[in-house]
């Protein structure tokens, strides 16, 4: 005879998953709700366009903040450049109004540079959910690329930290080999690459258990 009502059983299964498998905030370090954090483990307020309603964000990663230092130094030099150039006698021949507008224009370019670099850092994120891994890339002003692979399609995870500064600040790359259409997803310069690889390993184990128990979503 066909089932007339199956909902409670489903609910039971979901609860069972929560009890046995789900990663908890205390399992790994780095839980934070700071929107500017480069490493957030189980952030509470993250939502993104490609997410399913039942998907839970486990990791939100960005490049380590230290990678922003080169453009910050460039921006500082750009800020003081008009003051330095103004002191040169060469620019005395230029009418004052043109100098004023040129200075403002320069500061506009500087602010656009800072804004673009910040936006690029802030929105180029790597997201790990309990079902998939995502690489969200904003390549330029009008081009967006979102790559994803299912956790159960991950074949190999490699974390690498190379160089003095990455070793000191504990950041590096996590390379994920997948059986998906895109064979490799790279998380570049992310903080705590070892922990990220560990979380991915844990999620893969969970997926395997879910498969065995027949609880695949």
């Amino acid at each position, binding site marked *: 005879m066909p089932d007339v009502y199956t909902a409670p059983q489903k609910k039971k299964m979901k609860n069972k998953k929560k009890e046995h498998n789900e990663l908890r905030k205390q399992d790994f370090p780095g839980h934070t*709700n700071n*929107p*500017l954090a480069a490493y957030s483990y189980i*952030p509470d*307020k*993250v*939502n*993104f*366009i490609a997410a399913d309603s039942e998907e839970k964000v486990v990791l*939100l990663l960005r490049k380590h903040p230290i990678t922003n230092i080169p453009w910050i130094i460039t921006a500082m030099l750009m800020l003081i450049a008009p003051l330095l150039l103004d002191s040169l006698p060469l620019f005395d021949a230029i*009418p*004052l*109004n*043109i*100098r*004023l*507008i*040129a200075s*403002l*224009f320069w500061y*506009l*370019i500087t*602010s*656009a540079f800072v*804004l*673009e670099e910040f*936006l690029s850092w*802030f*929105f180029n*994120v790597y997201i790990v959910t309990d079902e998939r891994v995502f690489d*969200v890339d*904003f390549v330029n*002003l*009008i081009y*967006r690329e*979102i790559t994803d692979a299912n956790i159960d399609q991950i074949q190999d995870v490699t974390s690498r930290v190379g160089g003095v500064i990455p070793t000191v600040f504990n950041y590096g790359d996590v390379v994920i080999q997948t059986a998906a259409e895109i064979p490799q997803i790279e998380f570049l310069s992310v903080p705590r690459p070892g922990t990220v690889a560990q979380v991915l390993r844990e999620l893969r184990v969970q997926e395997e258990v879910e498969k065995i128990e027949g609880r695949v979503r």
Partner: protein
Amino acid sequence: MLDQALLVEISGPLWSGVKILILIALVLYTLFSGIMVRQVMLMTDTLEVGFETPIKIIAVLHLLFALGTFLLALLIL
């Protein structure tokens, strides 16, 4: 500096050419700032982490700064 700048009369073909070039550059820049605001809207729709409002405000302020500079250039050049 602004008072002095308002008093300067631009004469000669060189400075007139420079003035036109600056105005064209500022128009293009203002358009770019508008695209940047659109880009920020698109980005904040893609990813929501609770920092959307400050970013949108910064992008709009940048557009207003560009518009203000363009209007000032029209006024004093």
